[in-house]
């Protein structure tokens, strides 16, 4: 029956990306329970709009829906919470660069453990966390990220830069704190 075919086709396309969908939702929502709700919602929505999938990368299409479901979920559950923060202005970001000139020896990133990195990521604004995940974990191109976040490609590039700088700043701050603690 045609309806069963449709369902089977959806499952074959969508279920392999469940881990990716869950990981994104988990990083955005911050806990497993909410992430599960968001992902389940996203899959139902994806199924409902399956006929509007125009081909191309199903994962990109699906992750875009996960993101939308997360935004709806926040609106539903935490009205009033600022969802995506305003971009810090470019000048502020530039100060980060110039105030602490790159010094590979000061920035011993290889000594950073996963737990600290996880905590630092959790401190980042949502849109930074999101873009770093899409780029480094999902290994998506600028263009694919632009599709998912419905952002111009130029914004994707500058936001990605800022996200990395913000992470670097957190790391430098953590290092200094730790150093002074030791002293």
């Amino acid at each position, binding site marked *: 029956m045609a309806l069963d075919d449709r369902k089977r086709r959806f499952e074959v396309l969508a279920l392999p990306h469940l881990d990716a969908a*869950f*990981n994104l939702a*988990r990083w955005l929502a911050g806990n497993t329970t909410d992430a599960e709700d968001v992902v389940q919602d996203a899959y*139902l929505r994806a199924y409902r709009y399956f006929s509007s999938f125009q081909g191309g990368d199903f994962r990109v299409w699906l992750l875009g829906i996960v993101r939308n479901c997360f935004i709806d979920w926040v609106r539903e559950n935490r009205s009033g919470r600022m969802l995506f923060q305003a971009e810090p202005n470019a000048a502020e970001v530039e100060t980060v660069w110039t105030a602490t000139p*790159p010094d590979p020896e000061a920035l011993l990133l*290889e000594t950073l453990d996963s737990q600290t990195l996880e905590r630092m990521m959790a401190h980042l604004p949502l849109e930074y966390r999101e873009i770093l995940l899409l780029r480094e974990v999902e290994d998506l191109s600028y263009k694919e990220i632009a599709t998912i976040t419905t952002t111009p490609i130029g914004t994707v*590039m500058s936001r*990605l*830069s800022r996200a*990395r700088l913000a992470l670097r700043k957190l790391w430098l701050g953590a290092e200094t704190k730790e150093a002074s603690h030791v002293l």
Partner: protein
Amino acid sequence: MSCERMRPLLVRLADGALPQPRRYFVARHAAHCSQCAARLDELCAIRTMLRTKLPTHRAPPGLASRIVAALPRETPPAPSRPWFRIPAFGIASSGMFGALAGIALTLVLLHDGGRDDPTLRNLIGGHVRSLMAEHLMDVATSDRHTVKPWLSARLDVSPPVRDLADVGFPLLGGRLEYVDGHKGAAVVYRRAQHIINLFAWADAGPNTGFREQAQQGFNVVSWRAGGIAYHAVSDVNSDELAAFARLVGGT
């Protein structure tokens, strides 16, 4: 090229997103400029760190099967499917509903064509379809704290969902519905062995009283309150349906 203008290109180089020949020129610049070289190293180090050390979360076991189980067993109904096509569909698709379809077919034949209200016909069509197509509920639960948020997350209206079990109308669940060109909610209640579909969609008109109609063996009570149009549809008798409407609509 100045280091200032080089900066965004370094990012693209680190991301492997800089096509030739610019990649060659930027890499050559970085090879001769210690500051740019340090920045490039740093960008690459941040990328490597995230790729190798960021914990990823795998979907919990059971989530996949829960999702598959929750997928609706049919595609969303097309808007405003004419009611009279339903019986043929019912007979063809399911023996179990054949009897009901037969009754519906009889009702079509008995139906007097002079009093044909398309909205009413579509409402009853939606009701019958929900009984026959095994698509009574998208979310099946008697917990109104589950049904209401589920519906309002998907619609631009948030219809009240009440638990009326203690007055004889237990809540069964809810689903999304397209009726008469409106995208709305259908909240499903039960009265003894009869199903009541309460259709609700956004309608900015003024509040109205309860209007009772009957067609094709079904009763319909309609009203408008708080920017939502309501239509309760069922084959329970008109007095009981009117009582139900007052319970739901009496905010």
